[in-house]
């Protein structure tokens, strides 16, 4: 059960990573002309249309992560503590904190893309998207570090 949950958690996280990377790049460097390169096509997406998907994917990933975290605390973390992997556990704690802050930012993020006020500066939207992008990438990478830290077959 927990392995299945972890795999689904990882798969949803990959979808989220792709969606938010598309949106972030399109926000930072919007493609003006007709894209000719892979990079050009990657950022030539309608950014606002990604907002709903990102909110749903983030919420689902966080929920699944919150469930998997229970198994991690019982089965994995004690071993890491005994092995003295304190920096890895510290990185994981930072991931937890970032995830929580990002979760609470989702309403503001959604509003900034889908229901902005007339006077809202564009930089707010860019900044919120950037913060969420940093959180998602951090969580993804650190999640993998922790997942792989015991090595194959351990």
């Amino acid at each position, binding site marked *: 059960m927990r392995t299945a949950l972890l795999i689904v958690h990882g798969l949803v996280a990959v979808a989220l990573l792709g969606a938010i990377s598309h949106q972030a790049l399109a926000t930072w460097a919007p493609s003006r002309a007709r894209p000719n390169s892979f990079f050009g096509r990657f950022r030539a997406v309608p950014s606002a249309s990604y907002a709903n998907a990102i909110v749903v994917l983030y919420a689902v990933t966080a929920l699944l992560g*919150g469930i998997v*975290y*229970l*198994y991690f*605390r*019982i089965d994995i*973390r*004690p071993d890491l*503590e005994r092995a*003295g992997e*304190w*920096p890895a*556990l*510290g990185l994981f*704690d*930072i991931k*937890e*904190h*970032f995830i*929580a*802050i990002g*979760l*609470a*930012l*989702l*309403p*503001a*993020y*959604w*509003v900034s893309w889908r*229901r902005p*006020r007339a*006077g*809202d*500066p564009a*930089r*707010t939207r860019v*900044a*919120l998207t950037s*913060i969420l992008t940093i*959180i998602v990438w951090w969580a993804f990478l650190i999640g993998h570090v922790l997942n792989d830290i015991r090595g194959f077959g351990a």
Partner: protein
Amino acid sequence: MTSSRFHSFAFAYGTAFAVLYVIALKLDLALFTVYPSLGLILPGTHHSRDVGSPALAFLAPEMYWYGWTATAALGALVFGIVAALLPERWTQRVWPDWQWVVPAFAMIACVYLTLPWFRL
């Protein structure tokens, strides 16, 4: 809830949550403590050293992240509702960039509060 009220709620909620989460983390104010191996949830913050040997943490590890998040979410909900009830002309005068500046600083604060892990 109208679009404008939700706008005010969303921006106040995200900002307040970030501040309250750092406070909850720093002061260890978990709304509840989870013991996953026992399937137990106790209200408030509990440490194994409060009632027995610290070694109990290995037998019945406790989790605070859910509690810290709940503490911040509950507090932020109050701020969000108050902001949604305020007249729009008041909320429009708030600097809109607070909603990302505050969370960004909160993230830095979380990193700072986690630094002891790297000195072990």
